[in-house]
């Protein structure tokens, strides 16, 4: 990684330059290290790829429609299949997405069970975002309040995300994010039903290309990890399908409207039936592979 190289070069420079502090002659030597200076003063800018949570995606979809259907979720009993870190991380993401879905669509008692499985898996993955007793009390008190459950699940997902990132466990985090996204897509595509040009849910599914791009870019940072790389390869195949969709581009404009900045124009992605069905099948295949720990 370029930053690590820079850090090494910086440390070397420090080691070389410290003895030079007491001697005038050696200072000249330090002055002449122009190559090092160039590298030090022009570090590569940092680029971050942020990914909307499944909660946000479901909230947007709920504005349009859909319903809570338990059969779309990964069965709780499958948890026993997840023995290695890869399948645990992927399915922590899957169950987190299921939890967000259940909370968003007011499936109170079902949500409670998914809270438990997410809690168990966060402990198994050594993620310091496990629920304490007070959280379970809050969940029980709000079992029929979808908004509260959604907030709790959202907070916990964010805590797990932050914890993994802060502790430089980006490889696990990228698997969590990938699993969560695949499960969200599976659920939303199931809710969308058969392809129709005018279906607003399908329009939102097409927009997920941007999220997928960010996920793949994020995973690229950790692709030296073979588990991450294999999942990234699967997701790249989905992106290839998205890339077959028709794209219409209008000029991006921005201007003040109703007291706020309004962004309009830009790129619109439109599926046809064939591409949509290809994506549907591909998502189904990847999801089956993930939840069966294949």
């Amino acid at each position, binding site marked *: 990684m370029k930053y690590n190289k820079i850090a090494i070069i*910086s440390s070397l420079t*420090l080691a070389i330059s410290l003895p030079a502090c007491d001697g005038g002659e050696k200072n000249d030597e330090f002055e002449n290290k122009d190559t090092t*200076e160039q590298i030090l003063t022009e570090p590569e800018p940092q680029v971050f790829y942020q990914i*909307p949570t499944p909660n*946000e995606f479901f909230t947007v979809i709920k504005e349009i429609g859909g319903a809570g259907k338990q059969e779309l979720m990964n069965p709780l009993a499958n948890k026993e299949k997840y023995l290695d870190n890869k399948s645990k991380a992927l399915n922590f993401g899957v169950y987190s997405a299921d939890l967000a879905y259940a909370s968003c669509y007011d499936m109170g008692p079902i949500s409670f069970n998914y809270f438990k499985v997410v809690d168990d898996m966060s402990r198994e993955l050594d993620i310091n975002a496990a629920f304490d007793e007070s959280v379970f009390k809050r969940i029980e008190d709000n079992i029929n309040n979808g908004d509260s459950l959604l907030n709790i699940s959202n907070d916990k997902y964010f805590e797990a995300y932050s914890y993994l990132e*802060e502790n430089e466990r980006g490889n696990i985090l990228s698997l969590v994010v990938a699993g969560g996204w695949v499960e969200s897509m599976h659920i939303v595509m199931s809710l969308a039903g058969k392809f129709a040009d005018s279906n607003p849910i399908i329009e939102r599914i097409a927009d997920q290309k941007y*999220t997928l791009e960010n996920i793949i870019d994020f995973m690229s940072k950790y692709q030296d990890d073979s588990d991450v790389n294999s999942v990234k390869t699967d997701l790249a195949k989905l992106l290839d399908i998205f890339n077959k969709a028709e794209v219409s581009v209008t000029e*991006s404009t921005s201007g003040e409207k109703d007291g*706020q*900045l309004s962004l309009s124009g830009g790129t619109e992605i439109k599926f046809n039936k064939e591409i949509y069905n290809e994506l549907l099948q591909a998502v189904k295949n990847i999801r089956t592979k993930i939840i069966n720990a294949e």
Partner: protein
Amino acid sequence: MYMTTFNKLFFALSLPVSMAMATTGFSQNCKGIEYDCAPTKKQLDADNAGKEKNKNNYPWFQNNQSRFGTFVYGDTTFINIVVYKGTNYRISFCSPDKNVNGKITFQLTETKTTGETITTYTVKKEDKYNDEGQVVGQDEVTERKDKRVYNKNEVVLYDNTTDNMKQWKEFTTDKTRKITVKVIIPGSANASDNSKNKLSPAGYACVGMLLQHQRGPGATGWK
């Protein structure tokens, strides 16, 4: 551009520390700073004064694409976010470092790919044959080649340097889009004030980016 020996030493000393933190852009001490970035009611009221603001009393939620991080003075960072159609967003920046707070430059940009066809013509000589298949001379033939070239262009949608260095912005979008937030941490010639600030030791600054979302225009069925 040449640096003084002091500056070289300053970079050499500060960079290994800051790079180690900036590799992920995170610091435990910096955690949660983004929660302090939301503009105050007073600031919002002042900003909205005299504007025909669309009345909307829906609550603002913290978006999980918010970020905090520790950055070297003068650093530029790019944060790629996805914003959904029909949702209002508010993005705001802050820092506990007084050299940085209120002086963060940010832009909302988008990458547009545009295609153009570049046509080239090459003149070639080809043998000319008679009816018996014998070469009787040469003809000049113009060959046309079309090549589709794709260019990536950055479109700046908002730049706070043209808006009095405002540290937050509310926006909405009519299409789901991927936006790159370009953040420039101001450079500081005098970092001595920071040595007393645990969150921002000399040389690097803790910065928060808070993204919030709210039900936007045209949304239906929001709960």
